[in-house]
């Protein structure tokens, strides 16, 4: 923007700040627009200001970007002779003048829906849908005639005008119609009653109109009256989707002749047109239409040059590199690999490198790339909370008003606002909500956090977990050094940056996020963007609304009532008879228990009968079910519930998807089907939660408490039947015993010694008991645990068998293998013990292993990396109310060396060290590297008591008598070794003297190695010294070559400082130990 800009500035004669901003808005538009649109845009937005133009400067870069354009439009599209079919990914709406040609009869502002999508040829589509109006219902007061309605209309219009004084809308309430509908709430005998459908001009008016009606409205003849509104909380875009039968991510077709090419393109899409909502054809995702369009996925990552000791801040620290990877959906290899760097960068094979002299150019090039490549989905790791806000804020700081036009709409800037997302399931999370029009953002960090429970969510550990790969981690203090080096060091950084952009794409593929999320959107009918930004309830609501529409039902907006309804009793857990079972344990599972209960007993909003109604209606007992929690529901003979119907459809669809999956051969089709059956399962299970969510959209605790009460009853019933039938008296060899029961499963010990017999009895029991339940409740026999270690409720481990020949795997629940705040030692110890106990059947071996480990710990022979505890630093010390170990340590490290100290957002690893008596726990934390370098003794007692003792005792108590005495206080705990720290105060006064390697006697001469008494053991002692060196050399070699391998280069030093990597500390320690051991070995060279 250099030359062109300055020239224009002088001509524009110092415009006012406000104007200036407008200039920018147009400026950015020009650099990619074709001339055709220019004039009109200018007339529209910039009538009186000078035209500013960037000329030659961005042309070069544009040319390079050109080759990545989308495939050009086919002739049929240009001639408009072909119907347009596309897979939609995003639907939103804007307020604009209504379309004069399509809607000749209406005028003024209207909501216009925009559907963004991709055709199967890969052309981008922006479809403006006209004529769909926002509306909601209220129940019609009895005795209201047509005249009353028009009067009511006038009053409402008046009140609306009062409430929206600033609005210039010619009309607020467009019309009021009488419709025959029925409320979904409670069983009603009459088929329908009158409702008023209130159609308003703009979507925002729904809320304001609802407010007026909620509060009450004075109507002549009827007095002050407040109304309960129906379906007034449905988002406009969702309303549109429901009414047009559009589900998230499906294919939409607009027939030729029904669409009009826009006179003036508002977007950057290749196909932009207007049409009426009634002309849309929505295809259900079957057959040809279950496929995915080749949409473009951009994965990117930025690097910033932070200052020493600070986390990068957009106000000060420049963006130095942006790596971009564009992949076409369904392809294995990326289409584009690109890095944009500030300052020169040596080439990388197979990667397109663009280097720039100024940061502004980097940012502008990135914006141009977005516009040319036109991605449909933008992914990355933590892009929503870091990369995107950083780029936008940085552009603001640099005064690049033209930067944040990243969406598909011309002139429209990306909007950033703070958002909190809270749900029962995921807790409350703060995040930034960034709206990039027409492009879906998919932050892998959020998605993984949502769908998987992991001990750490750093990109490194997530990719280690799913891709089995360690990622090189370059500390941000080194990034600046690399940037300030030469083209080679920047290339190094670029390689690293590219990898960070590549990993999210690999995760996306590996975890099949695209398939699973698109299928989830199709099953539940919500737009894809809702799946990440909203909770479970919107998905159920969407299905409920769709079903209700079919059934001519309306859903009340009963949010307020929810909070007072209180809580209800949860699921039952049969008491666990803790112990170590060495006979096969059969597990009987209820298949989708809660959904099947709702189906079996016809539990729904519309089948619930209130207590008064029960008395009033006097329903015959054979037509109703009274639930164990005391509620009454009618049976399906009188009224079929719509929740059961939804569930039935979901489960049937799942069965079908599973059957299709078996037959499918194409891996892509398989992926779609697998995603679908998973989505169907999740959806079916979330219906119950929806009715129980007290702050949800439509809570109905009568339903949820009935479901759980039935569930409890069933578990108890199963237990009773099993223990009654399978007895010696009943002709079986042993008495069966139920040892534990969870929400939907029961564990039975039939007493038989082999897996095969237990399986036979398990099947028999499942069939027998299933016969006593109402369909579709079904008890299934799935697996055998043998042996089985039951610790307490929700905590158990066992070997899982599904066929009698070979066990499938070791299964552990609720046992410390994944807890985040434990050190690795706990996990290793627990896993190893379980393995020894369950697989090897070697309890003494497990005990010995524990003893050896504890002894190693006390003798200071433990690998330090196993002892590291890691916590994220989210706030500074002053903000925490209680002092915590990791925050205190961060403070201390800052005092030591501000450059390498962890800053906010970093994870702080620490170990607990021996400190003065009475020191607080938080004072005993120390940096593992510092500990290694200075020989600081760790506190084995802390690890023994606070980390490993509890999990160990839990495992061993059912097996061993006196487990605590045996394991934690035996002989093996008597001998300890504590190293002398090399930096403590006392050491300054100490005089160093060599000691005999054999017996530690101080030696007088400095050239001696051993004392005269040990002379005879010379060879033995030497063997030990040299064996130590040999072992360390071996370890060192393995560790460092692994790091070289990760780094992907043989000729460059390893820089990685990833503290999440399990071998980081080991590598450091091996390095130091080897140096020490060699020094000791050198003493022998006399």
């Amino acid at each position, binding site marked *: 923007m250099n030359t062109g800009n300055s020239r224009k500035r002088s001509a524009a004669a110092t415009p006012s700040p406000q104007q200036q901003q407008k200039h920018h808005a147009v400026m950015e538009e020009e650099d990619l627009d074709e001339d055709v649109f220019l004039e009109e845009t200018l007339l529209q937005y910039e009538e009186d200001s000078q035209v500013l133009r960037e000329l030659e400067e961005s042309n070069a870069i544009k040319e390079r970007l050109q080759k990545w354009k989308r495939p050009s439009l086919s002739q049929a599209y240009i001639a408009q002779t072909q119907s347009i079919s596309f897979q939609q990914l995003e639907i939103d709406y804007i307020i604009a003048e209504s379309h004069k040609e399509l809607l000749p009869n209406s005028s003024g502002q209207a909501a216009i829906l925009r559907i963004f999508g991709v055709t199967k040829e890969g052309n981008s589509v922006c479809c403006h849908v006209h004529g769909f109006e926002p509306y909601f219902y209220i129940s019609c007061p009895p005795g209201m005639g047509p005249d009353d309605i028009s009067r009511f209309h006038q009053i409402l219009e008046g009140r609306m005008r009062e409430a929206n004084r600033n609005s210039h809308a010619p009309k607020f309430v467009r019309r009021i119609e009488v419709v025959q509908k029925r409320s979904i709430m409670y069983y009603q005998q009459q088929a329908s009653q009158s409702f008023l459908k209130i159609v308003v001009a703009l979507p925002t008016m729904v809320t304001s109109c609802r407010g007026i009606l909620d509060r009450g409205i004075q109507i002549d003849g009827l007095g002050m009256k407040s109304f309960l509104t129906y379906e007034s909380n449905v988002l406009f875009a969702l309303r549109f989707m429901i009414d047009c039968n559009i589900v998230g991510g499906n294919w939409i077709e607009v027939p030729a002749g029904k669409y009009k090419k826009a006179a003036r393109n508002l977007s950057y899409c290749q196909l932009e047109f207007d049409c009426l909502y009634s002309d849309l054809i929505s295809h259900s995702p079957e057959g040809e239409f279950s496929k995915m369009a080749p949409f473009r996925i951009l994965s990117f990552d930025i690097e910033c040059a932070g200052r020493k000791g600070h986390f990068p801040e957009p106000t000060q620290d420049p963006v130095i590199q942006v790596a971009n990877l564009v992949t076409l959906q369904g392809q294995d290899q990326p289409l584009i690999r690109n890095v944009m760097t500030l300052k020169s960068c040596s080439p990388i094979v197979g990667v397109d490198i663009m280097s720039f002299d100024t940061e502004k150019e980097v940012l502008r090039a990135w914006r141009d790339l977005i516009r040319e490549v036109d991605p449909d989905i933008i992914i990355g790791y933590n892009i929503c909370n870091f990369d995107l806000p950083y780029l936008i804020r940085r552009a603001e700081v640099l005064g690049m008003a033209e930067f944040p036009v990243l969406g598909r709409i011309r002139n429209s800037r990306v909007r950033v606002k703070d958002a909190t997302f809270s749900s029962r399931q995921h807790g409350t999370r703060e995040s930034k909500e960034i709206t990039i029009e027409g492009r879906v953002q998919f932050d892998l960090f959020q998605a993984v956090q949502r769908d998987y429970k992991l001990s750490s969510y750093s990109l490194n550990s997530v990719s280690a977990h799913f891709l089995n790969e360690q990622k090189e981690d370059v500390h941000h203090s080194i990034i600046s050094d690399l940037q300030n080096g030469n083209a080679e060091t920047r290339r190094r950084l670029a390689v690293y940056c590219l990898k960070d952009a590549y990993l999210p794409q690999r995760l996306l593929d590996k975890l099949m996020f695209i398939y699973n999320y698109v299928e989830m959107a199709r099953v539940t009918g919500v737009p894809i963007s809702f799946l990440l930004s909203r909770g479970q309830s919107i998905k159920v609501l969407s299905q409920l609304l769709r079903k209700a529409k079919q059934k001519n039902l309306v859903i009340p907006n009963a949010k307020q009532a929810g909070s007072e309804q209180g809580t209800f009793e949860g699921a039952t857990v049969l008491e666990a008879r803790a112990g170590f079972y060495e006979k096969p344990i059969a597990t009987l599972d209820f298949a989708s228990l809660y959904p099947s209960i709702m189906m079996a007993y016809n539990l729904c909003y519309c089948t619930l009968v209130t207590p008064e109604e029960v008395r009033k209606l006097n329903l015959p007992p054979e037509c109703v079910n009274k639930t164990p929690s005391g509620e009454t529901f009618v049976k399906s003979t009188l009224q079929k519930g719509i929740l059961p119907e939804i569930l039935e459809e979901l489960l049937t669809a799942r069965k079908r998807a599973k059957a299709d999956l078996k037959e499918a051969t194409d891996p892509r089709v398989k992926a779609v089907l697998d995603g679908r059956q998973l989505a169907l399962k999740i959806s079916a299970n979330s219906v119950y939660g929806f009715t129980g969510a007290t702050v949800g959209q439509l809570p109905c605790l009568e339903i949820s408490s009935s479901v759980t009460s039935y569930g409890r009853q069933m578990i108890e019933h199963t237990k009773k039947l099993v223990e009654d039938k399978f007895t010696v008296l009943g002709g079986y060899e042993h008495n069966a015993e139920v040892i534990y029961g969870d929400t939907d499963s029961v564990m039975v010990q039939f007493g038989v010694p082999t897996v095969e017999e237990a399986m036979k009895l398990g099947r028999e029991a499942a069939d027998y008991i299933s016969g006593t339940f109402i369909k579709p409740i079904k008890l299934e026999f799935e697996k055998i645990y043998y042996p089985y270690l039951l610790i307490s409720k929700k905590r158990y481990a066992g070997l899982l068998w599904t066929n009698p020949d070979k066990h499938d*795997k070791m299964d552990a629940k609720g046992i410390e293998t994944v807890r985040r705040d434990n050190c690795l030692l706990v996990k290793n110890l627990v896993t190893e013990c379980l393995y020894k106990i369950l697989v090897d059947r070697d309890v003494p071996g497990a005990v010995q292993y524990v003893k050896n480990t504890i002894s190693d710990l006390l003798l200071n022979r433990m690998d330090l990396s196993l002892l590291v505890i890691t916590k994220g630093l989210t706030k500074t010390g002053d903000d925490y109310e209680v002092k915590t170990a990791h925050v205190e340590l961060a403070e201390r490290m800052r005092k030591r060396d501000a450059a390498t100290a962890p800053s906010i957002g970093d994870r702080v690893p620490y170990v607990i060290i021996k400190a003065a008596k009475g020191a607080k726990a938080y004072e005993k934390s120390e940096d593992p590297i510092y500990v290694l370098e200075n020989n600081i003794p760790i506190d084995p007692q802390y690890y023994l008591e606070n980390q490993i003792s509890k999990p160990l005792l839990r495992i061993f108590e059912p097996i061993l008598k006196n487990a605590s005495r045996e394991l934690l206080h035996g002989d093996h705990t008597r001998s300890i070794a504590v190293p002398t720290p090399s930096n403590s105060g006392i050491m300054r006064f100490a005089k160093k003297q060599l000691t005999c390697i054999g017996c530690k006697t101080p030696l007088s001469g400095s050239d001696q190695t051993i004392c005269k008494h040990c002379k005879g053991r010379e060879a*033995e002692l030497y063997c030990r010294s040299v064996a130590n060196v040999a072992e360390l050399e071996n370890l060192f*070699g393995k560790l460092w070559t692994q790091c070289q391998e990760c780094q992907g280069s043989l*000729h460059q030093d390893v820089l990685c400082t990833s503290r999440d990597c399990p071998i980081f500390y080991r590598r450091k320690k091996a390095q130091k130990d080897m140096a020490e051991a060699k020094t000791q070995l050198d003493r022998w*060279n006399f």
Partner: protein
Amino acid sequence: MEKNLLHRKQSLYQSLDANFGIQKEVYRGQQYSQIYFARLHLMRTLLYSLIPNWKPHLPVCTVLGLEEGKDCIIVGTLYKHMRLKPSILDEYSKERSVSPLVQRHNFTHLDDNLVLEDESGRVKLSGCLLPSTYVTGNIIALHGKETSAGEFLVEDVLEAGLPQQIERPIQLGEDKYVVFISGLSVGRSSSNPLQFQLLVDHITGHLGDEKEQNIAAQIVQVVIAGNSVEVPHGLLNGQNLGSKDQSRLFEPIKELDILLTQIAASIPLDIMPGSSDPANFSLPQQPLHRCLFPGSSAYNTFRSCTNPHCFELDNIRFLGTSGQNIDDLGKYSEANNNIDFMERTLRWRHLAPTAPNTLGQNLLPCYTWKFL
């Protein structure tokens, strides 16, 4: 009874181990990259000097300078991606597999592929280069061109090849023998002290008739090439040992010393450390300490040597290792027999090409030792 007195033949011995010795060097955080870097520079200079005789018409490029479709020569270090290569990270894998891991003897796999790296970057190789022959660490020159997929299509390969041969001294008439022994494994449960004693007696000429003794008299040098003792591994875990265990640890070494003393008393003896000996792990292994051999080290015929070991006898040069380099090649590449592997090390002009990637190598600056 007077017999013909047999005189053991003599020869002139000169040790060339100086290259492999490490003297008082302190480790200061060096990394392996320096080894590769130095190796690449030395070998590249060599390869560059060969290229004019190989394909003089082709330009020589760096990995970065590759242009699509253009024939050229690149020189760099090979890196072999191996699916089965054991990694220390496996220790941390989430799920312990139910079936115990089978210890493999060979880690090659059909999916292995090669990458060529120089200081400027890496490029994936395709074409006529057989991944099973090469290992990570080979430095070679390749003729080929970059394909549209960003790979380098190899058409021809140039290895460093055999060096200029040392002129062989012409000797007439006199036969002399050098005895190489390895894998004595004194202390292993299966080792039989009688057999060893028999060997010693044979070498020292205490066995057989005159004819046999005649042969024994022609032996001028004995070289023990590694794995002489086997110390019970469990005893060396850093814990203090009881006196019984101390003797168990020391016993095999003492036994070895007794036998070596017998040899050293009559003939020059070189002993090299091997993988099971009480020596350091990384190559070059340093000589076994004299304190281990209080008896034999009293003789000046006894020499404790490095591994690899290099010496000249009557101007004939010997160079050898205790075999770790060849064993490791056997794990990470394929050949018909060990002789092939040994031949390859000569052609590559690198004694231990897999070091330091899969074979331990000392980081201390002694790069030059590996180049023949």
